[in-house]
């Protein structure tokens, strides 16, 4: 996998997912190693995403690599009108690998085609965020002991939620049964349902989940954002149906875990944090191990 960019979750095969997850498990057991000594990683965040940037930088720091970059395009030449092309061609002289977040969709793919050094996409608009998907897979496997034949509940904004779309694509390799729970306005788009139909995978659509929650192995929560609704009254009526509370989790499977890509607003009530199924903060920690695995694998040191 040396010198191969990671732009989209579909760039990796099932075997490559598993290789990354196994490597991430090694880093979890031994997170501080000097294997990136002498390497420079650039983190180019053309739009702010503090959590993702810190996670990548923590991953590199713990492996002895050095970081350069910016956390906001406001401080760069982009404000002077420099193209992405020029920024990438310049920065690739300074670093061995570029982690980039860019508001334009397909920006990371384009960068990977012109850059002499590998690109890791840390989010391109509403399109892809593959390291998030890999850390989600890692969290699922770690908590369930397997990836195959699980019931995955996706709740909230399934229309615009980039993380659920990528996770769906990745889990399609593992005979997952999907439960999509969302208001009508934010249903899973047809193209993803057709994708599952073509693979012969099962999915169910619901507007509520209290009656079926006992089937879940994983509940993956997303934010229902007010600005996605054309009708504010509709938002007020539906928002509380998609807030998870501890008393909804009474009849769930003992190993069931609640995941969330974070940041959360109000969709997971604080009383869930003390419930044994709350896993979203550990999930964020798994992000560091997964990113250590991605970077060291691409740089060929593992």
């Amino acid at each position, binding site marked *: 996998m040396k010198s191969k960019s990671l732009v*989209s979750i579909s760039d990796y095969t099932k075997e490559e997912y598993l290789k990354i997850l196994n490597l991430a498990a090694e880093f979890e057991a031994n997170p501080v190693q000097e294997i990136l000594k002498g390497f420079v990683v650039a983190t180019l965040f053309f739009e702010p995403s503090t959590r993702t940037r810190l996670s990548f930088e923590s991953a590199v720091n713990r492996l002895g690599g050095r970081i350069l970059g910016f956390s906001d395009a406001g401080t760069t030449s982009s404000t002077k009108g420099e*193209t*992405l*092309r020029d920024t990438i061609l310049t920065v690739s002289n300074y670093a061995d690998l570029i982690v980039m977040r860019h*508001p*334009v*969709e*397909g*920006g990371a*793919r*384009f960068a990977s085609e012109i850059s002499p050094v590998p690109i890791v996409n840390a989010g*391109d*608009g*509403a*399109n*892809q965020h593959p390291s998030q998907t890999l850390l989600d897979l890692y969290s699922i496997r770690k908590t369930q002991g397997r990836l195959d034949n699980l019931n995955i509940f996706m709740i909230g904004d399934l229309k615009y939620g980039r993380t659920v779309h990528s996770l769906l694509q990745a889990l399609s390799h593992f005979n997952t049964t999907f439960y999509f729970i969302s208001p009508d306005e934010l249903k899973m788009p047809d*193209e993803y349902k057709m994708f599952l139909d073509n693979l012969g995978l099962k999915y169910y659509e619901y507007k509520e989940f209290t009656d079926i929650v006992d089937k879940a192995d994983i509940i993956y929560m997303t934010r229902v954002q007010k600005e996605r609704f054309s009708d504010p009254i509709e938002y007020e009526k539906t928002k509380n149906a998609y807030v998870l509370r501890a008393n909804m989790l009474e009849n769930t499977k003992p190993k069931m875990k609640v995941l969330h890509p974070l940041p959360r607003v109000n969709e997971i009530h604080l009383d869930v944090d003390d419930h044994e199924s709350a896993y979203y903060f550990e999930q964020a920690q798994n992000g560091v191990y997964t990113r250590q695995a991605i970077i060291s694998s691409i740089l060929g040191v593992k």
Partner: protein
Amino acid sequence: MKDKKQLVVSAIKDGTVIDHIPANDLFKVISILGLDHIDNYITFGTNLESKKLGKKAIIKISYVFFRNEDINKIALVAPDAKLNVIKDYKVVEKKVVEVPDEIIGIARCVNPMCITNKENVTTKFQVVNKKTVSLECHYCEKITDKANLVIIKG
């Protein structure tokens, strides 16, 4: 009616006849093939009666012969088009268009947030459904379907 049609678009001695173009898409076909930039003798007729298409268009181009990969580009807008290669007033070869697996540069991505609409990047699509002409952007991964298809001016 048939006789009249042949009078409207006169025969050519050597060249290519492209028939069965949907009338609404005639100018897209002209643009895709770059016919608006060449000096050859070209005649075309449009809004002609067609049992299959309702209204069709036909183009006759003198002394131009297309390579298959060039002619397949028009499959995006005229998947039923048929070509007759004419030599000395006779049809010497008939061709049909085939929707290619990959479309480079001809169409615009429907997604305004796509890099191809923001910077000088050549568009590139995988054809994910040849029947409905559904294109998946190589960059932003969004689908552009026939209803939203915009041809980039040559």
